């Protein structure tokens, strides 16, 4: 009885949120609109990372894939004149390839070695952006990256059209990931994440599932990079360093990775706090570091785990009441 209720609450909340997001740019300050676009990018990153985390492991190169997508899309658009709307998916494809390449090299590495190796390989890519001034612009990066053109009378280099563009991309990606979870591929992903040995014994090829997850996750991360770079008009290696990766980890850990909604909660709550605490920018990292540690120690299910517990508690309360009433 209570289950459909929760589902309809969820759908209602979602619809409300989407409507809110659609009218936001018309009455919010321009700066807030920019912040919202970055929020969409983080959401894409978080959801794509969750996919990889649940199937494979907590790799540390996800943010660099975001960078690969950014650099690829930017360079294609700037140097080769590729139209922006085509460059972005190409950036995603490149990021996907990079993710698959790194993962396949490290398929046999486990445990600590795996984490450090992913960090190392990610740094290698980032260092090559810093070293090779010629295509990549070195440590100062690339600027004068083209904005999207005018399409059907709408100028996508302006703030509001680009806002809707990135909102649209985010919703599409979220929907795709949502459907993926409920599809057959999603089923085999779930099997691999819950019990790899059992899954392997039913004929599912673990390495192939992992590579597939990395490919999909990498692709979306790359798209996020493309979205970023054509709004900023510039890119540089510092954007994709370990600090950014750590923040992504914080959003995910605090949100929880159990269900699809974990990252949504995590990014929404933590990124809002992140922007609200801008006046405190010096000590902000400390708040987030402490928050992450406390969540790890006391709230391992993350925010979504807490919401689930609260919902279960409420349900039980109501159940007990109805039982008492009877």
């Amino acid at each position, binding site marked *: 009885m209570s289950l459909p209720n929760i589902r309809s609450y969820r759908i209602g909340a979602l619809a409300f949120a989407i409507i809110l997001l659609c009218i936001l740019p018309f009455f919010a300050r321009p700066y807030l609109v920019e912040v919202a676009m970055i929020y969409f990018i983080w959401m894409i990153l978080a959801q794509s990372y969750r996919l990889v985390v649940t199937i494979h492991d907590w790799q540390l190169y996800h943010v660099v894939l975001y960078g690969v997508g950014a650099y690829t899309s930017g360079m294609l658009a700037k140097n080769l004149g590729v139209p922006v709307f085509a460059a972005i998916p190409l950036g995603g494809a490149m990021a996907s390839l990079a993710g698959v390449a790194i993962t396949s090299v490290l398929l046999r590495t486990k445990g600590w070695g795996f*984490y450090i190796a992913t960090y190392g390989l990610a740094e290698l890519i980032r260092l090559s952006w*810093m*070293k090779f001034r010629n295509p990549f612009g070195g440590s100062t990066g690339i600027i004068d990256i083209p904005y999207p053109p005018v399409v059907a009378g709408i100028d996508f280099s302006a703030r509001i059209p680009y806002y809707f563009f990135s909102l649209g991309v985010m919703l599409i990606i979220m929907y795709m990931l949502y459907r993926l979870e409920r599809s057959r591929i999603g089923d085999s992903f779930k099997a691999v994440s819950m019990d790899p040995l059992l899954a392997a014994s039913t004929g599912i090829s673990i390495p192939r599932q992992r590579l597939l997850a990395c490919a999909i996750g990498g692709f979306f991360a790359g798209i996020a990079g493309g979205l970023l770079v054509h709004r900023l008009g510039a890119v540089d290696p510092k954007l994709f360093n370990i600090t950014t990766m750590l923040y992504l*980890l914080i959003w995910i850990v605090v949100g929880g990775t159990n269900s699809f909604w974990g990252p949504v909660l995590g990014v929404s709550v933590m990124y809002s706090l992140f922007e609200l605490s801008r006046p405190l920018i010096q000590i902000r*990292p400390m708040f987030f570091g402490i928050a992450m*540690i406390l969540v790890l120690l006391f709230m391992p299910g993350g925010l979504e785990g807490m919401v689930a517990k609260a919902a279960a508690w409420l349900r039980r309360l109501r159940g007990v009441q109805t039982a008492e009433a009877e």
Partner: protein
Amino acid sequence: MNTQLLLQTTANAGAVSAMYALIAVGLTLAFGVMQMANLAHGHFFMAGAYTVYALYALHDWPFWFAVAAAVGIGAVIGLAVERGIFRPLRGDVVGGFIATAGLMFVFEVFMGEVWGWGHMRQVPSPYMRAVKFFGASVSFQRVLVIPFAIACIGGLLIFMRWFRLGRALRAVAQDPEAASLQGININRMTALAMAIAGALAGIAGGLMSTIYAVTPALGGHIILPALIVVVVGGMGSVGGVTLASILLGFVMTFVTTLVDGVTAMMVSVAVMALVLAIRPQGLMGHVVT
């Protein structure tokens, strides 16, 4: 490359190797005993450097007293982190490293808020001269690290071989279950390991506070070479650290001199990735079950 350049670069490399060894040995010990890499190790190092800055540069303590204080503070920090983070999260590999990552943020902000963010903190060199041999000259401050590195590594090896507590540490590193069956208190051993690791980081940071720029970003800079050394040498192997730090020191210095710093970093990281892909236990490490 002429002889003079070769000699000078070799001298530079030797000093750097000792520095890396001293920095990395605490990290590998902690890893060996707890099976968890302490990503905040670089920040322990930074805490040692800031201790010397605060006591020696700001309050005029004698230099060596300040370094001794850095050792103490490092040990205390190590104990606190073990008790607060590593013990509750034991066995949770992911949680452990994410928590230490969070710790990195906390340390950075603390240092920045208390002592300022902008400029590097000035720690005057107590020994402002160079050691010259065969035409090469190296700062005395750097040369000073070599006997300390040797003493610490040697001391650690002796401790782990000839002393009961040290052997208990090794037992826990090799097989925690068997060790606890033998009556060894795992909690006490992990606390000891982290205390030693923190102390080693403290002395490294204190000694090198005059060599590196003391800023809140120092911890983040230091952890990558330390990780590379530990991984290449073998996580948990003190002998491996010695070997790997020499290897890394020479690679970094020679490549930086001949090409540039970024390439040197890339080569080092590539070496680490190669080792991880081919021989994940490192040069002298044991296969982890």
